[in-house]
C-alpha cells in the first residue's frame, strides 16, 4: 500500500491526531525503518513505512487502528526501536505507530506498590521519579537507557537482574491493549489493574506480551514496584579454564542466596575479544581464560551476608577476584550496552566498523558447553567465508534464581556496509543453523528478543509444534484482516486458502 500526499487517508489521520503528528518526510520514515540488529543496508528502502503517526492516547491509537483495519493498511507499532529481532521494522510499508508521546506517569500508588504509566516511558526516566519515593521498577535490559515500557511488553523482554526481581512478564501487572479493529481491552491477571495473581478465566496477559506487534498495541501499563536497593555487590572473577568457570557459575546460581540477582559466564572467545578493546581486560595475564560475575541487590546486611557466601563458593572453585574497580565498572556498564562503540577486526587484524548481532537462546545449564562449541563452529565458518563477520565470544546469563537455564548469547560483529546479498544469504543460513543447535539441545530460540528475524523464524514452527497451529488460529481470530505487523513470524500462513 502506498499513501500519497493528499490521499484522503492522510487527511483522516491528521483529523484524528492533528497535522503535526502525522509524519511523511523521508527522514522521519527512514529513522523508523530499522532497529540496531545488523541488516543489509542497501535494502533499507524495502523497510520504509509510508507514514508515521504519533498518537497521544489510547483513544487515538484505537481510532488509527479502526481506520487502518477498515482500509486494510498495514500497521507496525514502534516504541524505543531497540529490539533485536526486527519487531518494529515494517515489511509491507503502511503506518508506523510511534508511541513515544504516550509517556505520562498516571499514578504512583504507594499503598499497593504499583505505578501506572503510558507505555512510551523509559524505565530509566521512570526510576528517576520513583527514587524520590525510595522505589524502583527493576526491568533492566541492555538497552535500559533507551528502550520503552511498550517495547518490553511487545517483546516480553528479559532483565539483567531478573533472577532477583523477575522479567518483564512478572513486572507488568496489567495493561490497556488496542486490538487490530480498534477495540480496547484491559489484560492482566483477571480484570484487575493491580492484581498480582488471579485464576479467573484464560490468562491473557502472556498472550498479549511478546507478540511483536502482531496482535495490537499496548498503551497504558500498571507495573510492580520494589524498594530501591540499599546496597549492590557485583564481584567479577577470573578462571584459568572454561570448565572451572562453568562449574563456578552453576554453583553460584544454585546457592539459593536470596539477594542473588544474576550471574554471567564469559567464555574463552569472549575473553579474547575483550583483550583487544576493553581497558579492564587488556592488562589481564594470559592465564585468564574465562570469567564469571554475579550481582546481588537488597538491604546492606543481606547483601553482605550473601556476598560472603558467594565469595567463599567462588574461591573454593578456583576463582581469582578481579578487584573492586573492574567489578564495579564492568557491572555498571552492563545496564547500558547500547552505548558501547563497536568495532571488529579483519582477518589481517585491521580495525573495521561493525554492528552487533546478539543471539539470545534459552539453554539449560547442562547443555551450555555443547551449545558453545557448536555455535563457535558456525561463527568460524562465517569468518572463513568473509571478513564481514567477527566472532566476539559468548556470555551465558542466568534466567532465574535456581540456575536451570541461561540466556545464552553469542555476539557476532557484522560489517554492515559490506553486507552484500551473498554475505546476507550466508548470515541467514548461519542464523538458521544457530537456532537448529538450540532446538537440538532442548532450548528455546530466544530468551529475550523474540525470534522473528530471517533464518531463525523458519524454525519457530518446529520449536512450538502444535502450539504454532494455535498461534496461527489466534492470529486469524484476533486480526482477521492481517493488518498488524504483517509478514512477521510467518503468520501470513494463517490466511492461506484451504485447499
Amino acid at each position, binding site marked *: 500500500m502506498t499513501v500519497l500526499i493528499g490521499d484522503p487517508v492522510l487527511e483522516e489521520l491528521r483529523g484524528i491526531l492533528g497535522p503535526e503528528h502525522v509524519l511523511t518526510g523521508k527522514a522521519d520514515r527512514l529513522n523508523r525503518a530499522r532497529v540496531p540488529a545488523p541488516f543489509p543496508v542497501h535494502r533499507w528502502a524495502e523497510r520504509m513505512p509510508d507514514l508515521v503517526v504519533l498518537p497521544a492516547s489510547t483513544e487515538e491509537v484505537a481510532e488509527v487502528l479502526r481506520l487502518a483495519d477498515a482500509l486494510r493498511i498495514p500497521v507496525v507499532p514502534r516504541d524505543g526501536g531497540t529490539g533485536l529481532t526486527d519487531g518494529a521494522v515494517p515489511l509491507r510499508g503502511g503506518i508506523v505507530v510511534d508511541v513515544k508521546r504516550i509517556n505520562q506517569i498516571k499514578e504512583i500508588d504507594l499503598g499497593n506498590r504499583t505505578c501506572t504509566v503510558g507505555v512510551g516511558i523509559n524505565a530509566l526516566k521512570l526510576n528517576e521519579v520513583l527514587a524520590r519515593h525510595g522505589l524502583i521498577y527493576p526491568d533492566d535490559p541492555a538497552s535500559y537507557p533507551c528502550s520503552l515500557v511498550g517495547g518490553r511488553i511487545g517483546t516480553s523482554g528479559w532483565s539483567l537482574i531478573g533472577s532477583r526481581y523477575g522479567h518483564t512478564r512478572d513486572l507488568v501487572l496489567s495493561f490497556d491493549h488496542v486490538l487490530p479493529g480498534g477495540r480496547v481491552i484491559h489484560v492482566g491477571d483477571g480484570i484487575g489493574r493491580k492484581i498480582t495473581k488471579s485464576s479467573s478465566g484464560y490468562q491473557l496477559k502472556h498472550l498479549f506480551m511478546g507478540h511483536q506487534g502482531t496482535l495490537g498495541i499496548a498503551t497504558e501499563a500498571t507495573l510492580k514496584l520494589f524498594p530501591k536497593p540499599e546496597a549492590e555487590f557485583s564481584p567479577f572473577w577470573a578462571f584459568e579454564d572454561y570448565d572451572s568457570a562453568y562449574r563456578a557459575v552453576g554453583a553460584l546460581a544454585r546457592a539459593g542466596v536470596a539477594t542473588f540477582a544474576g550471574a554471567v559466564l564469559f567464555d574463552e572467545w569472549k575473553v579474547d575479544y575483550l583483550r583487544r578493546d576493553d581497558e579492564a581486560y587488556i592488562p589481564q595475564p594470559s592465564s585468564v581464560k574465562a570469567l564469571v560475575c554475579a550481582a546481588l541487590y537488597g538491604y546492606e546486611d543481606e547483601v553482605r551476608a550473601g556476598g560472603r557466601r558467594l565469595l567463599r563458593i567462588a574461591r573454593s572453585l578456583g576463582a581469582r577476584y578481579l578487584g573492586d574497580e573492574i567489578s564495579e565498572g564492568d557491572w555498571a556498564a552492563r*545496564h547500558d550496552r547500547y552505548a558501547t562503540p563497536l568495532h571488529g577486526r579483519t582477518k589481517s587484524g585491521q580495525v573495521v566498523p561493525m554492528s552487533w548481532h546478539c543471539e539470545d537462546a534459552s539453554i539449560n545449564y547442562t547443555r551450555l558447553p555443547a551449545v558453545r562449541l557448536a555455535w563457535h563452529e558456525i561463527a568460524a565458518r562465517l569468518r572463513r567465508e568473509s571478513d564481514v563477520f567477527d566472532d566476539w565470544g559468548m556470555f551465558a546469563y542466568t534466567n532465574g534464581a535456581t540456575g536451570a537455564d541461561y540466556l545464552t548469547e553469542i555476539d557476532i560483529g557484522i560489517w554492515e556496509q559490506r553486507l552484500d546479498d551473498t554475505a546476507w544469504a550466508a548470515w541467514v543460513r548461519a542464523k538458521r543453523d544457530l537456532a537448529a543447535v538450540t532446538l537440538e539441545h532442548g532450548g528455546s530460540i530466544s530468551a529475550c528478543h523474540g525470534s522473528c528475524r530471517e533464518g531463525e523464524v523458519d524454525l519457530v514452527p518446529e520449536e512450538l509444534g502444535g502450539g504454532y497451529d494455535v498461534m496461527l488460529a489466534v492470529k486469524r481470530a484476533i486480526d482477521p484482516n492481517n493488518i498488524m505487523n504483517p509478514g512477521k513470524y510467518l503468520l501470513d500462513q494463517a490466511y492461506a486458502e484451504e485447499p
Partner: protein
Amino acid sequence: MTYRHQEEMSPPPARRVTDVAITRFEHVYEVEPALMTEHVTQQSFPNWDTLRLVRSRADHLAWMHRHFAGKVISGEELLHDLDE
C-alpha cells in the same frame, strides 16, 4: 590543560601493553595504531579531551551505580572479612 595548542596535541610516548594495544596515560589503552590504517583511521585528540572522555565514562558508571542502589559493597572488604 596546557597553555599551548601544540603541547596538547603531543601525547606522551606510547608503551606497548600487548600485541594489539598500547598505553600513553595510566589505565588508558589504545588500539595499536598500525591496526587502524585501512578502514578506520585514528583521530588526533588533544590530551585534555582524551582524559575528559575517560573521566566522563567513570562519572557515568558511578551515576549508574547510584541509580540502582544506595551503596556499592566492596568485594575486597568482604574478602578481608573472610580471611580473618
